[in-house]
């Protein structure tokens, strides 16, 4: 699977007309001989499968290819970017689940109440707002109020700060992008939580529990939510895909140094290995998320565990 994706992206990237050296060719200070030497060094004269195999070899060495723009292996460029993307997406994921679970469950329990109607209206509105506009809107709020920094991950004087202040600085910069990502993710989650809890609440055993005097709140959060957990855990993996996509846009708008800006710059500069590595990396994140979801499902539901002989 992963091999397939990596090959696909590599193929797309390699099919690109024009390469990095074309830009250099326009520069009269660089002689044609130098350019030819560069082409040989970067293996640009090889066939596409040959280049791909070389790229795979460099992945095995942990280098992920060679960036012609930064003139260094891609690996060391990639890791801090992946870390930064995770710093954004993991809190956004947790936050949106923490809000979506109680909100969805409550509105399922009080179907048709004002809370249900308000949350339905809000989620529908949010669903219609694309992440690009959401990001711009939040930036506008930041600029108008001046409470939050408008971009980047750290302040200018970051290096001079103490360890604790550094953490605080990054946290302040996190507020806007995480809010944006949470708002992108939230409506989908709330809707699904509500739908699956509504399904369960109709079940006979819930009615039985209600009849035997189990308080409503306990009924919802203990009995109903637990039973509804399975599809929700699978949803975790699915929602990750949307979150990663949104993260690309939000990161770029808010100049957060994650995978997104790296990919965009690389596309602009025709930096083949960086593009292939960034896209493959995002897929790895996605698949890892799905693995986590499967693991959780395994823990949560004894029915799917294989029978031990």
């Amino acid at each position, binding site marked *: 699977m992963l091999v397939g*994706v990596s090959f696909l992206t590599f193929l797309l990237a390699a099919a*690109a007309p*024009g390469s990095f050296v074309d830009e250099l060719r326009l520069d009269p200070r660089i002689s044609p001989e130098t350019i030819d030497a560069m082409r040989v060094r970067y293996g640009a004269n090889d066939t596409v499968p040959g280049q791909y195999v070389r790229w795979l070899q460099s992945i095995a060495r942990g280098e992920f290819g060679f960036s012609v723009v930064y003139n260094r292996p891609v690996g060391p460029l990639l890791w801090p970017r992946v870390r930064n993307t995770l710093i954004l997406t993991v809190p956004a994921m947790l936050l949106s689940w923490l809000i979506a679970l109680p909100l969805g469950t409550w509105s399922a329990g009080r179907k048709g109440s004002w809370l249900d109607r308000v949350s339905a209206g809000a989620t529908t509105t949010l*669903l219609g*707002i694309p992440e690009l506009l959401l990001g*711009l809107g939040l930036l506008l709020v930041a600029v108008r109020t001046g409470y939050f920094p408008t971009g980047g991950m750290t302040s200018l004087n970051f290096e001079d700060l103490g360890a604790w202040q550094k953490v605080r600085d990054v946290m302040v910069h996190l507020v806007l992008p995480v809010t944006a990502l949470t708002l992108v993710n939230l409506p989908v989650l709330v809707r699904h939580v509500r739908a699956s809890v509504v399904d369960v609440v109709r079940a006979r055993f819930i009615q039985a529990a209600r009849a035997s005097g189990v308080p409503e709140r306990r009924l919802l959060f203990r009995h109903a939510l637990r039973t509804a957990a399975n599809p929700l855990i699978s949803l975790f993996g699915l929602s990750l895909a949307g979150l*990663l996509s949104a993260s690309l846009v939000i990161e770029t708008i808010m100049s957060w140094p994650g995978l997104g800006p790296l990919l965009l710059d690389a*596309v*602009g500069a025709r930096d083949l290995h960086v593009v292939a590595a960034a*896209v493959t990396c995002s897929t790895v994140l996605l698949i890892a998320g799905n693995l986590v979801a499967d693991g959780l499902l395994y823990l949560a539901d004894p029915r799917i565990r294989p029978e031990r002989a």
Partner: protein
Amino acid sequence: MQSRLPDRHYTLPLAALVVVYLAAIFAGFLAPYDPSTQSRDLAFVPPTAVRWVDRSGAIHLRPFVYDGERPYPIRFLVRGAPYRIGRLFSSERHLFGVDAPAVLFLLGTDGFGRDQFSRLLYGARISLFAGPLGALLSVAFGIVLGGAAGFFGGWIDTIIMRAGELFLAVPWFYLLFAVRMALPLRIEPQEAFLMILSIVAVVGWARPARLIRGMVLSGKMRDYVTAARALGASNVQLLWRHVLPQVSGIALTQAALLAPQYILAEATLSFFGLGVGEPVPSWGNMLAVLQRYDVLSSYWWMFLPAGALLGVFLLYYLLADALHERVAALPG
């Protein structure tokens, strides 16, 4: 839910969309200015106030605008910059405008002093057509590939569906930019339009293909299909006459769902400078100036393309919702 009239539901968003699209087609006539005419000394001018009452308190019969102290009435069917609608029809008449020294910027100007209102209309041509055409194209791919996979089964099915999984495994925007990488960096706006069409079609074929494969799988088992086969219908006949008609509702709903997503794809690509380039306006590249801090904070009318995008999105979602209900309500 059954008591609702499904037909009513989609006439309203559909009618509104038709109006928006007509406005885009007749952009040349409706827009008072050419979208790429610059007036450098009029950068970031706020929207021109259209008045009926002048400073002395007198009411005018025609709306007018001030240029300094002098009022200029707004004229209709005025002569202005030449334009074309499609390839057939060219003219110099614009629906409205004002005489030369005065200016009529209904929605202000951008950093080069170009009229936002005209650019919004012209931009709609690209932004609004790339999305739905791309959606139709990828649903068409989906029908062909998904139909073939479901109908023939076996190794054809395996290959097509495995390939589809590859496309589904990559986060959507990452895939979009990866496909963008395969195409040249600097291209003409007309080519860019075609390029965006092909990008979104390539990126998006897998989801409709999956759905349609499922439909075809169950569809080809129907008794009447078996009967037709027994009567000697060829594969092509079977697919075309008997199986695909079952799929059309789903395909239409998919297209309506994909269209806004693709409109957004165009806007995002152009926003990041990888789609339709200047001087041709598109809603995405009009929003791109908002990446500048001073523009973001000071010139609210530069946000208007965002509002236009939101409105069109809403209409498409309403339409998709209504279509979905209608398809679900159909028997079978």
